[in-house]
């Protein structure tokens, strides 16, 4: 690891001043940042340790929940309100990482974790995300885990979070604080597509600190998080789907669909959702929604399998969510 200076500010105001130093970076759980620092994919000069800021509470707010940025993944998935009213979020979190990592990783940090693209992790290879302008090694390389939707010629990396996919389907908002301002960013606008600037994963400003994630009141309907991966546990998603289905008798009142492992950000399948609203419940409707969710998808060779896999996983998750609703 390269040398850096370290401080642990006593409060948020001090943290927001400290982050103004050259090459400064916030450290929360550190499960991804330290990992990246060890391989030189991240080289901060100054570490601002925010892990002890008092942002580790989950509270009820306007019928929903306010999840402090320092709430650990374990605490989030273990919270009775989350387990009862937002089960797909609890499932998504429990399906990510290992118990040791979930005990340490934070809600804010989970949103800011970086891609697990092998080339991003390997400073001996070109990577536009790590070293802008150097090229993308994955395009012609081994790209089995890479994006099928919303990618660019500059980057085909995917966002690795499970939690963020669940938050995407729940229409969460990210609350952020800057030295002289604060704002809420819709989760759909928080992460970015790569375009020509894949070095920017999110629309968070350099001096902004995530303070909380806000969940709206629990949605009506069945909730499912389905993750497909190479191992049965402790692995990133090849494809994951968060699905919400609300029924009106034998009709679909509304459905919401988000996918993970397929794009540079959690991917909301809005066209597929529209297609389902108000139609009679049927396997065909869900299969068609799966196809709609991957419309325009593009494989890069090794990851071609993700296109049919994503379509079928969407159909399967929707079917299960609808069943839950009927039960």
């Amino acid at each position: 690891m390269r040398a850096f200076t370290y401080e642990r500010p006593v409060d948020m105001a001090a943290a927001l001043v400290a982050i103004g130093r050259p090459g400064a970076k916030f450290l929360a759980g550190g499960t991804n940042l330290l990992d990246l620092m060890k391989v030189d994919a991240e080289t901060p000069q100054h570490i601002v340790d925010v892990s002890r800021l008092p942002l580790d509470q989950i509270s009820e707010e306007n019928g929903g929940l306010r999840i402090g940025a320092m709430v650990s993944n374990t605490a989030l998935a273990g919270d009775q309100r989350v387990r009862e009213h937002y089960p797909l979020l609890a499932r998504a979190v429990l399906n990510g990482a290992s118990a040791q990592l979930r005990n340490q990783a934070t809600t804010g940090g989970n949103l800011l974790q970086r891609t697990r693209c092998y080339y991003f992790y390997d400073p001996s290879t070109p990577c536009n995300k790590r070293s802008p302008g150097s090229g993308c090694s994955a395009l012609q390389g081994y790209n089995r885990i890479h994006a099928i939707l919303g990618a660019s010629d500059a980057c085909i990396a995917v966002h690795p979070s499970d939690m963020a996919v669940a938050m995407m389907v729940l229409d969460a908002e990210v609350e952020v604080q800057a030295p002289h301002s604060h704002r809420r960013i819709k989760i759909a606008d928080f992460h970015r597509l790569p375009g020509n600037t894949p070095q920017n994963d999110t629309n968070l400003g350099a001096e902004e600190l995530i303070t909380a994630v806000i969940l709206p009141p629990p949605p009506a309907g069945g909730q499912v998080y389905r993750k497909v991966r190479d191992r049965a546990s402790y692995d990133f998603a090849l494809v994951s789907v968060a699905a919400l289905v609300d029924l009106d008798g034998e009709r679909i009142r509304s459905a919401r669909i988000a996918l993970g492992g397929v794009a540079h950000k959690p991917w909301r399948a809005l066209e597929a959702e529209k297609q389902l609203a108000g139609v009679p419940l049927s396997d065909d409707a869900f299969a068609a929604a799966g196809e709609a969710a991957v419309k325009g998808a593009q494989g890069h060779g090794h990851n071609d399998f993700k296109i049919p896999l994503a379509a079928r996983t969407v159909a399967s998750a929707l079917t299960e969510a609808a069943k839950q609703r009927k039960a």
Partner: protein
Amino acid sequence: MTVDIGLTVNGVRHELKVDPRTTLLDLLREQLGLTGTKKGCDHGQCGACTVLVDGVRKNACLNLAASLDERGVVTIEGLGDEHKLHPLQAAFVEHDGFQCGYCTPGQICSAVGMLAELKSGLPSAVTADLKAPAVDMHEDEVRERMSGNICRCAAYPNIVAAILDAGKA
């Protein structure tokens, strides 16, 4: 730059000066001579370095020592010794829960943390009913909850048996 920290390890208080880059894993092994905690991947993927920080299992390789000022750490050396084994250590011996033994300290510290999590009712990815306040311990739960500890010798069946046995107590 060095950072001053106070750290309690296995009940012994240490006042230390650390380079900010020092991980808890390297501090334990290189500065405190506690080599029971193993370095496997050094990236949080294998679990060999698992220790308990304030009673919670964590990967020592992904913690900066500087961040742990005034925390309490328990390593395999703090759980028991050859004269008085921790029940999980005894169960690993009884069930032959290892081959080469390199992952074992991490497996045992992880199992201690895991049983506490289970006792407090925390669900896992295989828990069928998320709303249930208590979770039954069975093989699937143990396998899922221990997935952060890799055993290259694949002693998994005996590791699971040892944990199930010790967990009953």
